[in-house]
């Protein structure tokens, strides 16, 4: 019988692997940023899956807090990366014009 936490934990690992593969293989900056976000969700899923202790027990709060922190850090990193890619885009344009 498949335990809930095992199902979601393995799903998290597969998602993280998919995100990692795409982050390495894609060439487009925004696609890579997207891939890193998927990688992050995969890792968070492993955390939350380990926190889950069945339908009747309250889950472990520590991984929940870690994941909350992680989500905010991930969005901060995404914003910075998108800012950098915008800067690159502007620089590209300048060199094209010359």
């Amino acid at each position, binding site marked *: 019988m498949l335990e*809930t*936490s*095992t*199902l*979601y934990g393995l*799903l998290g*690992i*597969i*998602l*993280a*692997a*998919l995100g*990692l593969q*795409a982050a390495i*293989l894609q*060439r*487009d900056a*925004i*696609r890579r*940023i*997207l*891939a890193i*976000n*998927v990688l992050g*969700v995969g890792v968070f*899923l492993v955390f*939350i*899956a*380990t*926190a*889950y202790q069945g*339908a009747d027990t*309250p*889950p*472990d*709060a*520590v991984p*929940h*807090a*870690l*994941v*909350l*922190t992680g*989500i*905010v*850090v*991930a*969005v*901060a990193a*995404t*914003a*910075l990366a*998108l*800012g*950098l890619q*915008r*800067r690159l*885009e*502007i620089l590209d*344009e300048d060199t094209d014009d010359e």
Partner: protein
Amino acid sequence: MTFDALLVLDMLLATLMLMLAIAALHCESLRQGIFLYIVFGLVTALAWARLKAPDVALAEAAIGSGVAGALLLAGLRDRKPRKQKSLLRRPAWQVLTVTYLVIGLALTASWAFLDAQANDVGPRLGAMVQAELANSGVSNPVTAVLLNFRAYDTLLELAVLLAALLGVLALGPERAAPRAAGPVVHHLVAWLTPLLIVTAGYLLWVGAHAPGGAFQAGALLAAAGIVVRLSGNPHNGLPSGIWVRMLAVAGCGVFMFVGLASMGGGANLLQYPANWAGTLILLIEVFATLAITTSLVLVYLGGQPDSWSSGRRKARA
């Protein structure tokens, strides 16, 4: 019977997440990829709800699919249409090497995960949290961990957010504002914004005893700033000049101040006196919310607001 239905739901959510992730990462059009990523965020929020992590589900619904989606769309608009590159393929040997390496890594991680599950012995940190919860000043265990037991993490997280904000501000002027919206968007924004603000206030308040708190509230307030911006209003709801900067550092600042003040009372850094803990946590959360909101709206603008540099620009001209 109950179990069967749950298993069906689990399998559905898992399949959906897998398919959405693959489709979002590898579809032809990047715009569609971002759209699929937002839907992926929605399904992820359902998975968090299913795994009894309502705090995380709230944050995912607000940040993961909402704010991150708006950010990615803004990033996509930075592209000039003629430059929207199609998928560039890599040579087969690179694809194969990376794929096999990643599969190897995933198998190792799965083995470690299954092994850890099979040998699940020893006390969990969660039990310690439950035991000490009464002394934390709040009754929601996740808030207790974030703002009391592991307050260092949260302080540093606010610092990371501030660092990202400084990085974005250093990159130049803000993105061009969208043009003024028509009446439909204006009306939608006119009643959506107050609702977002009220819900944010509510989440901040209930965070002490139920799922919610500074991050979720900050993300919702930031969403309010983002829709005001999207409606073509140049003011985006933030105060001007020095006040924005004060707000952006207020989270870290108040947090550090409280931490140092508790040292003055003879305790360790960030070790609050037990009878004050609830009040101090609320104080920190209010300023953290304001700082998170300010930072998220400013990074959405993508650079220094025009109002900051207009003085300098006039001087140059």
